[in-house]
């Protein structure tokens, strides 16, 4: 086996790409989830006009391919005088897309909370906002967590689309080497392994989160 290829070319390049991937995934995952919570809540309990706007947002970003969104952000926005660098455009695209999916999981969680708790909070003088932030959303997020975790795992993998708009991350670095050396099989097997490790670590963290936020009386006995 050609170990020099791995140790001097492939692994250093992929590690460099991995760092970029992590830089894309972490902010996109966190901000995407938070934005998803806000949008999901607005879609469920918002003023009718805001609800329509939030629903339209979800329809657009769930209904169009991520590649299209990325191209429009990176190559389309300059037509309006807005220039985003490749990294910013990629993160923005991931946030917009994943928040639209998160919002649907959150909406499911919100709909599963009985209206009585809302009434109880309001009967004690909670404002609508505080009812949401202290009572309803914390429970909805717990119920949405498995679905949102799924979306975050999916995000780890679709972060590989960033190289299409010249933000060279894990897949991009690998692709460059594969094209140059024509060793597609080895390169993409190793890339696949990198993603598998990332997803396994993310699953572990998500599982710990679920355990931490488990409420007695729900789920596992």
């Amino acid at each position, binding site marked *: 086996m050609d170990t020099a290829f791995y140790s001097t070319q492939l692994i250093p390049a992929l590690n460099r790409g991995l760092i970029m991937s992590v830089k894309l995934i972490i902010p996109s995952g966190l901000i995407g989830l938070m934005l998803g919570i806000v949008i999901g809540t607005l879609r469920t309990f918002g003023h009718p006009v805001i609800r329509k706007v939030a629903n339209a947002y979800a329809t657009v970003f769930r209904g169009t391919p991520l590649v299209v969104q990325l191209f429009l952000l990176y190559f389309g926005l300059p037509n309006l005088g807005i220039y985003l660098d490749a990294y910013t455009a990629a993160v923005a695209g991931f946030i917009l897309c994943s928040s639209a999916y998160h919002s649907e999981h959150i909406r499911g969680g919100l709909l599963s909370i*009985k209206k*009585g*708790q809302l*009434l*109880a*909070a*309001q*009967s*004690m*003088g*909670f*404002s609508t906002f*505080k009812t949401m932030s*202290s*009572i309803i959303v*914390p*429970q909805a997020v*717990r119920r949405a967590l498995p679905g949102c975790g799924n979306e975050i795992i999916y995000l780890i993998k679709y972060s590989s689309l960033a190289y299409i708009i010249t933000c060279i991350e894990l897949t991009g670095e690998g692709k460059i080497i594969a094209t140059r050396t024509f060793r597609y099989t080895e390169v993409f097997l190793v890339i696949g392994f990198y993603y598998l490790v990332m997803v396994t670590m993310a699953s572990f963290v998500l599982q710990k989160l679920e355990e931490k936020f488990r*409420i*007695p*009386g*729900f789920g596992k006995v």
Partner: protein
Amino acid sequence: MTEQKPPILRVENICKILGGKEILKSVSFSLNKGELKVLIGPSGAGKSTLLQCINFLIPPDKGHVWLEGVEVQSRRKRDLYAFRQQVGMIFQDFNLFDHLNALENVSIALRKVKKIRRPEARDRAVAELERVGLGDKKYLYPAELSGGQKQRVSIARALAMDPKIMLLDEPTSALDPELIGEVLSVIRDLAQGGMTMILATHQIGFTRSLADEVLFMENGIIIEQGAPEELLSPDACTRSRDFCSRLNELYAENE
């Protein structure tokens, strides 16, 4: 009751149409400080709707509510929230916050609504839980409590807000017969401690012994109103008396 003082709560001309059906047809009554009024009547009479109209959880189509002589401006959010803090409400199905333990259920409104700091809110919550006999259950979650205990937590939660009046919407209707007693005894202590309350219930014995006045509701109006001795005495020819004896028969059959 002295007549000089204005009633603590006055409700006038409350009307509500829900789903094309007239649920409340101009209901009016008032409540003096320290009084316990009991709302009885068949299900569908509008008792729950009336109670929820009083604190605007269901906004009434028409009507006015006065607390201590001041009309509640329900359209002004700030006034509405301030009013609701003074009116405790107990629900038939408890409505505890599932993600919080008993202690947090009682203290959360103190912290988030009354802006009381965490340690003080906690102390107050502990005191209220002890008052309803649940000092040893403070770290249990709603799913770990019995129905009677849940309802007592919800009473503690309402009391922690120092309400001027309490609205109790069939607080024992979702409980097993052997758990009703523990909740009624908490309500009895409150009544004897001078809490002003309006209670919707089917507990006739309890009504007879503690109510200052009985309001009998049917089809969205109060059709009879008076002291329990008058309305519910065995030789009274009232609609209330009729209804209660039918309830008693039902219970006798079940036993």
